[in-house]
């Protein structure tokens, strides 16, 4: 049987074992998640990893595959292991809980710090807000709203790697969707929250987030939008 040699990161905390090599049978249309699942179910049941939907909807199976953050469920082995080499590690820039499972708390805490919650200006007694589909703000929201919080951009961002306070592409992208939401009432606080050395101004426009986003979003463009809006807010005194 055609076999694949797979190096998988094992450990976490004080129990690091480094990369361990497993032999996995090749299958047609096999995904990297299939490979990890085979190892856990047929070779070593102690392997820890995270997944849910298996079809690219939930964003929970992202890992580092051959040095690059990817959704493992939507990555075919043949697309990344043409030379028969496959190396699977947890997402970068996040603490490892065990094996391939990272602690996503700081990633989502930064969404909260970027004021990523919708703040309504109307009540249930008011009429529905009317937002024209072709409105400039609506189009800006459309371009950025499909993020499912997988963390691929965060793991791919060089700035996150050297500035642990940096909010990161996903949180800033989320803030940008709310900045453009005409129903939201917290833009002054949100613009203040995303400005500065830990916010949008730390972005170097490397565009790794945009290059790697499995949803094809462009967080770099969202961050550029935030830079423009924070500059305007600083000029008008909305950011003091």
């Amino acid at each position, binding site marked *: 049987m055609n076999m694949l040699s797979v190096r998988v990161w094992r450990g976490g905390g004080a129990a690091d074992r480094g990369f361990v090599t497993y032999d996995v049978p090749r299958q047609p249309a096999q995904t990297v998640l299939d490979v990890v699942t085979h190892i856990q179910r047929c070779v070593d049941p102690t392997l820890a990893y995270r997944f849910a939907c298996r079809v690219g909807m939930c964003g929970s199976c992202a890992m580092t595959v051959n040095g690059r953050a990817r959704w493992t469920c939507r990555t075919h082995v043949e697309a990344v292991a043409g030379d028969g080499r496959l190396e699977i590690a947890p997402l970068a820039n996040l603490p490892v809980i065990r094996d391939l499972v990272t602690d996503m708390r700081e990633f989502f805490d930064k969404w909260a710090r970027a004021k990523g919650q919708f703040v309504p200006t109307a009540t249930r007694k008011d009429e529905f807000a009317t937002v024209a589909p072709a409105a400039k703000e609506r189009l800006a929201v459309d371009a950025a709203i499909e993020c499912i919080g997988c963390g691929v951009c965060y793991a791919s961002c060089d700035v996150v790697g*050297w*500035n642990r306070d940096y909010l990161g592409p996903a949180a800033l992208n989320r803030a940008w969707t709310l900045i453009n939401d005409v129903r939201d009432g917290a833009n002054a606080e949100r613009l*203040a929250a995303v*400005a*500065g*050395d830990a*916010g949008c*101004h*730390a972005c170097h426009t490397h565009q790794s987030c945009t290059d790697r986003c499995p949803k094809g979003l462009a967080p770099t463009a969202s961050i550029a939008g935030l*830079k423009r809006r*924070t*500059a305007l*807010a*600083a*000029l008008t005194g909305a*950011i*003091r």
Partner: protein
Amino acid sequence: MSARRTQSLLWLAQRTSAGVLALCVVVHLVTMIIAVRGGLTAAEILGRTRGSFAWAAFYAVFVLAVAIHAPIGVRAIVAETRGAHGRGIDAAMLAFAVLLLALGLRAVAAVTMGPAS
């Protein structure tokens, strides 16, 4: 003024000065290429620049854009690589801007003031 407001305004200043610099650098390079086609001497340069308000104005704008743009970039690099923040680095970068402005304007004055030879 808060650090967040300072950052936002510095970003705007750097973007604006970058736009000015893009234009100035192109004019500067094209002028250099055209000017050296027939050989280049100090007398030839000074003959063109001495007493010229246009050259003085152009390079004064160039120097001003550099004095705004460069310290903001250096500030970001120092902040990221050395972890330096706060008023100290702001004061150091302001001093750097003043130094660039003074040296640049002195050079502009040296080649544009005085009688055309």
